[in-house]
C-alpha cells in the first residue's frame, strides 16, 4: 500500500511541437498512465502569422495573394471564401463561365487535398507506399494547376468578380484524361488499404465522433459527414453553380476513423464525376472554341453563349489600385476539404478592409481532439488525429 502511493503513476509527455506526426507544429501536453492517455491539452499558435491583422494594413487586392496561405493545401477554397465575401459587399456579379472555372479548380483542389490526407494518414499508421502513389497523382493535378495559374501551390488565381485567366489551350482535354485515370488509381489505393485487416483493426471503432459531439464542437466537412450528419454546403447549394450539377453527398454511420477514410475516398470519386459533368456543360465550351466564336459573333446580345456576360471571365473589371467596395459587411461560407471555411469581411468604404475574420474548420477539429483520445491507448493518437485531417497553418492563421 505504502509503495503504491510513492510510485508516480502518471507521466507527462510532450508531443510536439516537432514530432513526426503532428502535421506541422502542434504541441500536445499529454498525461499518460502507462500507455493510456488520461488528459490532453493542445497548445496551438506556433504558426500564427497574424493574417487578420495583416488585412487591416493592406488593400483588398494586396491581401488577395495572402489568403492562399491560410490553408496551403486548399488555397482555392480560401481565395473563394474571401472573393465571395468581397463580391457580396461590392455587389459584383460573377459570370457563369468564371463560376464554372472556379468550380472545376476547386474540385481538383479537393481531390489533391484528400490525396495528401490519404498519404499522410497511412504514413502515420506506418504504411509508406501509399504516400508515394498518392503524391504521383497529386503531382498531375498540381501540374494542371501550374499550367492554368502559373504556380504549383499559391495560385492567386481568383479575383473579385471572376477569375484572372481562361484555361490554356488543351487544358480541358488533359483534365478529362486525368479524370478518366483517377478512379483506377483510387481502386488501387483501395486494394492496398480498404480491406487490409491491420488497417481495419487500427481504425474501426477508434475515435468515434458522435453526431451530438460533432455538432456541439462545430465540426464540419467530411468529419461530420462520417458521423451521419448531412451537412454539405454544396447541396443544397449556397454558393457557386453546384445546383446545376448532379452529385451525391456521401455519408457514413459510425463516425470512427475508418468511416472518415471511406467518406473521403468516396468524395474524391464524386469530385471526379463533378469535374467531368462541369467540363461538359461549361458555358462557351473549350477555350479554343470560345476564342473562335467570339471573333465571329459580334451579336451584342446579353444572353449570347459566346460573347455575352456568361462567357466572360470577370464581370466588371475592378481597378486593382483603387478598388473601393462600399461600406458594409458580409459572411461567406465555402465547403472546403476540411469543412466550412467562412470569411467575415467588414468594409468601411476605404481601399482597405476594416476587419477580416477567418473561421477555419481545423480549429474545431483540434479542439475536439482531447475528447476523442481520452482513455485510449497512446498509439491511437495517430489514427484519430490523422483522420481528422488537420492542417496547422489553418488552425493558427
Amino acid at each position: 500500500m505504502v509503495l503504491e502511493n510513492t510510485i508516480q503513476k502518471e507521466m507527462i509527455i510532450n508531443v510536439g511541437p516537432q514530432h513526426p506526426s503532428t502535421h506541422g507544429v502542434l504541441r500536445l501536453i499529454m498525461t499518460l498512465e502507462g500507455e493510456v492517455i488520461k488528459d490532453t491539452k493542445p497548445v496551438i499558435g506556433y504558426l500564427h502569422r497574424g493574417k487578420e491583422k495583416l488585412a487591416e494594413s493592406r488593400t483588398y487586392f494586396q491581401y488577395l495573394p495572402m489568403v492562399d496561405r491560410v490553408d496551403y493545401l486548399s488555397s482555392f477554397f480560401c481565395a473563394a471564401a474571401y472573393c465571395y465575401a468581397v463580391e457580396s459587399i461590392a455587389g459584383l456579379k460573377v459570370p457563369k463561365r468564371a463560376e464554372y472555372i472556379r468550380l472545376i479548380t476547386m474540385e481538383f483542389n479537393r481531390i489533391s487535398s484528400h490525396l495528401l490526407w490519404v498519404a499522410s494518414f497511412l504514413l502515420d499508421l506506418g504504411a509508406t507506399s501509399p504516400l508515394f502513389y498518392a503524391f504521383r497523382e497529386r503531382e498531375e493535378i498540381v501540374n494542371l494547376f501550374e499550367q492554368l495559374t502559373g504556380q504549383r501551390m499559391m495560385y492567386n488565381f481568383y479575383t473579385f468578380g471572376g477569375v484572372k485567366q481562361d484555361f490554356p489551350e488543351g487544358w480541358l482535354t488533359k483534365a478529362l484524361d486525368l479524370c478518366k485515370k483517377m478512379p483506377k488509381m483510387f481502386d488501387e489505393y483501395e486494394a492496398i488499404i480498404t480491406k487490409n485487416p491491420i488497417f481495419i483493426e487500427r481504425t474501426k471503432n477508434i475515435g468515434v465522433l458522435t453526431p451530438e459531439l460533432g455538432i456541439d464542437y462545430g465540426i464540419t466537412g467530411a468529419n461530420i459527414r462520417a458521423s451521419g450528419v448531412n451537412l454539405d454546403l454544396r447541396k443544397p447549394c449556397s454558393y457557386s453553380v453546384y445546383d446545376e450539377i448532379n452529385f451525391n453527398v456521401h455519408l457514413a454511420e459510425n463516425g470512427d476513423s475508418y468511416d472518415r477514410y471511406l467518406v473521403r475516398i468516396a468524395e474524391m470519386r464524386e469530385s471526379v464525376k463533378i469535374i467531368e459533368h462541369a467540363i461538359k456543360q461549361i458555358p462557351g465550351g473549350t477555350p479554343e472554341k470560345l476564342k473562335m466564336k467570339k471573333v465571329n459573333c459580334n451579336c451584342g446580345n446579353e444572353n449570347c453563349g459566346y460573347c455575352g456576360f456568361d462567357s466572360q471571365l470577370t464581370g466588371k473589371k475592378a481597378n486593382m489600385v483603387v478598388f473601393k467596395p462600399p461600406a458594409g459587411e458580409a459572411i461567406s461560407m465555402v465547403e472546403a476539404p476540411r469543412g466550412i471555411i467562412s470569411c467575415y469581411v467588414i468594409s468601411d468604404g476605404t481601399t482597405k478592409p476594416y476587419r477580416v475574420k477567418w473561421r477555419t474548420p481545423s480549429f474545431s477539429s483540434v479542439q475536439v481532439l482531447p475528447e476523442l483520445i481520452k482513455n485510449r491507448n497512446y498509439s491511437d493518437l495517430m489514427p484519430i488525429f490523422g483522420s481528422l485531417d488537420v492542417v496547422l497553418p489553418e488552425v493558427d492563421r
Partner: protein
Amino acid sequence: MKKLINKTFSGIIEIARGMFTIGKHAFRPAITLEYPEKKQVFNSRIRGRLALTTNKDGELNCIGCMSCTKVCPCGDLIQIETSKGENNKPVINKFTIDIGRCIFCGNCTQVCPKDAIIMTEEYELADYSRESLVFDIDKLKISPEKSDQRLKQRERDN
C-alpha cells in the same frame, strides 16, 4: 471459431491482394525527376523571377507610374525613383526588387499598363546573402528580343 477462421483467411487474401498491388508497381517506370541534371519543363504561364522588359532601343518600358508598388502585398519590396528627363519623359533612376521577399503572386505584372514588368521562368534563385538578392536594373533588365518573345507568349495565352 468459424468466424475466426473466416477472418483469418479473408485477412490473408486481402494482405496478399495488397502485396500484389504493391508488387505491380515494381515494374512501372520511376516517377523520380533527378533534379540538377533533368529539369521540369514549365509552360509559359509560370510565375518565376521578375524582370523588366525593354523596347527595341534597349530602353526600359517602365514609365514610373508606381502601380506595381501599390498592389505589391509585401510592402516596400519594389522601390522606384524617377525624375523628369527631356520632353517630360520619365527617367527611371532606381528600380530595385528584393527577390528574397517576393512571393511571386504576379499582382505587379497584372497591374502594369505597359507590360514593363513581367515574370520569367527562372526559379533557381538561391544565394549566399540577402543583400545579393536585392536586384537592381542591370540584373532585372532582359534583352529586347527576349522581352518581345515573352510578351508575344503572354498575348497568345490570354
